[in-house]
């Protein structure tokens, strides 16, 4: 634009050549754009002040020089050579010829060159006027703008994608979902919502939530959530609502609610996820009944099954005491057998009861001093069986997270087993400690007793499963089942390694106390 004006101005100033030249000089020195004029040999004739300022060159090293030699040959630019030597000889003017160049003093610049061939008189050689516009900053701004525009496009695309994704999520999840605006009017509804509550889109979207399905949704607990709880917090989970719907009957629902702000300054909207837990509640109630029945059963077992056993034991002893002289050795042996079977059955009942109690007992998770628990158990074992000869090696400083009562039952079982199955070893040694097993710390109870055949290891933890004859080692076959149940209830694992006549090691994991 500016160079255009310059030319017009120069043409208008035709009357006197000197005047015109002076005028041209002042124009050249006034415009902000660097201007330079070259003779037909491309040597510098006139230079605008702005050219010197901009390219940081001095008049004495500029005028009369070949343009390519300016500023230590910095101006030897292929694109400029192309303009001056190839394009201009064919046309008298060229606008907006873009040249990008790295200058030593002023750095990388992008310039727009407007070039004019001027014939300053008949027969005279042509000269060239070059107007140089520095568009470096403009380019940068433009590039920045372009980048911003692209980013915006990406952002919009991802917003669109996110929206599409959200829509598909809403329509995919089994749980009915509904979104409301700040006036509690329905904005989006998932397909599952329509299916579940048997409403149609045309009677749902845009309506007040309480008005849905003939005002069936006007539920006091829901009003409380939306109007009282949510204004104070941005989210609320597992809010239970029970309601009798006309079409689908009485339902118990768990509501998860989120407040969403979809942009700065916009009104908040609410997303409601509805989980129908009616069946789950019914099953839970059923389970609770079953549990109570089981407890009643356990009570009867403990009370009623034990009473006759005491009778059998008591009266067979009475027989022995009162009529023992009328029986021979064998007869008295039979009575001993009756009594020992009775004892076994009594223990079975006790163990079964304990086993069922362990499944139901409430669990407390607390820090346990495993070393102290093991030491107390060993002390008790020695009290109970004075003929216990085993050496116990208990690793100091062991701790874990668990229920003190249940873990003590489990550890007692393991240590008792170890003592029992090593009772025939000449130097019975029982160890309790902790090792690194498969990347996590595992407790272990190791003995050097009779061990067992690993081929039967899958039966080890089953109820009533025994790997040894009762005549060798008595037991009810419930102990290890109990231990496994307890460890599993703690989220831990239990396994064993053994070899016949070379002892057994039982490993179990528990959460570590922090």
């Amino acid at each position: 634009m500016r160079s255009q004006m310059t030319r017009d101005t120069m043409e208008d100033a035709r009357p006197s050549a000197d005047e015109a030249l002076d005028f041209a000089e002042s124009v050249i020195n006034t415009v902000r754009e660097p201007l330079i004029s070259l003779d037909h040999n491309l040597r510098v004739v006139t230079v605008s002040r702005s050219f010197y300022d901009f390219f940081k060159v001095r008049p004495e090293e500029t005028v009369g020089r070949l343009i390519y030699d300016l500023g230590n040959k910095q101006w030897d630019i292929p694109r400029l050579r192309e303009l001056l030597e190839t394009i201009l000889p064919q046309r008298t003017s060229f606008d907006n010829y873009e040249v990008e160049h790295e200058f030593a003093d002023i750095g990388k610049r992008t310039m727009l060159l407007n070039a004019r061939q001027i014939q300053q008189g008949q027969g005279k050689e042509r000269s060239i006027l070059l107007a140089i516009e520095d568009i470096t900053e403009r380019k940068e701004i433009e590039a920045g703008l372009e980048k911003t525009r692209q980013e915006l496009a990406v952002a919009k695309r991802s917003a669109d994608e996110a929206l599409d994704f959200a829509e598909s999520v809403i329509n995919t999840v089994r749980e009915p979902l509904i979104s409301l605006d700040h006036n509690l009017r329905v904005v989006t509804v998932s397909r599952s919502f329509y299916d579940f509550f048997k409403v149609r889109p045309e009677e749902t979207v845009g309506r007040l939530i309480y008005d849905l399905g003939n005002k069936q949704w006007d539920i006091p607990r829901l009003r409380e959530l939306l109007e009282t709880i949510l204004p104070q917090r941005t989210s609320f989970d597992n809010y239970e609502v029970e309601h009798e719907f006309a079409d689908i009957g009485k339902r118990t629902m768990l509501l998860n609610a989120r407040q969403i702000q979809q942009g700065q300054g916009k009104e908040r909207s609410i997303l409601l996820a509805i989980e129908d837990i009616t069946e789950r509640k019914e099953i839970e109630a059923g389970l609770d009944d079953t549990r109570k029945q089981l407890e009643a059963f356990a009570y009867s077992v403990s009370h009623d099954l034990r009473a006759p056993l005491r009778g059998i034991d008591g009266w067979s002893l009475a027989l022995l005491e009162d009529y023992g002289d009328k029986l021979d050795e064998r007869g008295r042996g039979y009575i001993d057998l009756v009594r020992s079977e009775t004892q076994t059955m009594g223990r079975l009942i006790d163990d079964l009861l304990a086993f069922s109690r362990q499944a139901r007992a409430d669990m407390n998770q607390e820090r346990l001093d495993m070393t102290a628990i093991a030491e107390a158990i060993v002390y008790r074992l020695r009290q109970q069986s004075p003929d216990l000869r085993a050496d116990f090696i208990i690793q100091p400083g062991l701790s874990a997270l668990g229920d003190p009562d249940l873990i003590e039952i489990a550890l007692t079982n393991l240590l008792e087993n170890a003592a029992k199955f090593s009772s025939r070893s000449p130097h019975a040694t029982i160890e309790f400690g902790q090792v690194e097993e498969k990347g996590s710390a595992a407790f272990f109870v190791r003995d050097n007793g009779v061990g067992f055949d690993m081929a039967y290891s899958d039966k080890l933890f089953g109820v009533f499963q025994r790997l040894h004859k009762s005549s060798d080692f008595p037991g009810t076959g419930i102990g290890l089942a109990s231990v496994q149940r307890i460890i599993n209830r703690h989220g831990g694992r239990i396994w064993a390694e053994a070899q016949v006549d070379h002892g057994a090691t039982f490993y179990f994991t528990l959460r570590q106390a922090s």
Partner: protein
Amino acid sequence: MKNGVILLVEDNPSDIGLTKRALEQNHIANPLVIAEDGREALDYLFGTGTHAGRDVRDLPAVMLLDLKLPKVSGLEVLKQVRADERTRLLPVVILTSSSQDMDITSSYGLGANSYVRKPVDFTEFAEVVRAVGLFWLITNESPPRKR
């Protein structure tokens, strides 16, 4: 040896027989009164029903009370005994097959003096009867008779 009555509240004839046998073997010769359900126990203590006219000031030295009883449960008997001024101080020993925490807690909660689980092994059972008898009939000082 003080000759206070032992009131055995027990519905199982075998257990009654075994208790008698254990008492005899341990030479506890105190008179034994047997009530075979909760109602009968209350009638004896309060002089009602089949025991109408009994002087209720004659408190037993100890009541051995089973929990699972016909008609009126052991816990209900205990509750009524503790609620009545005349029997409030009667020593009550729960003697039962149950070792449920709930039963133990309820028994002590209602004011049982002790709780003993009947072992299956008769030898142990006899020992329990001996220990209970020794303590409540000899070692323990009974509450004074009301006038």
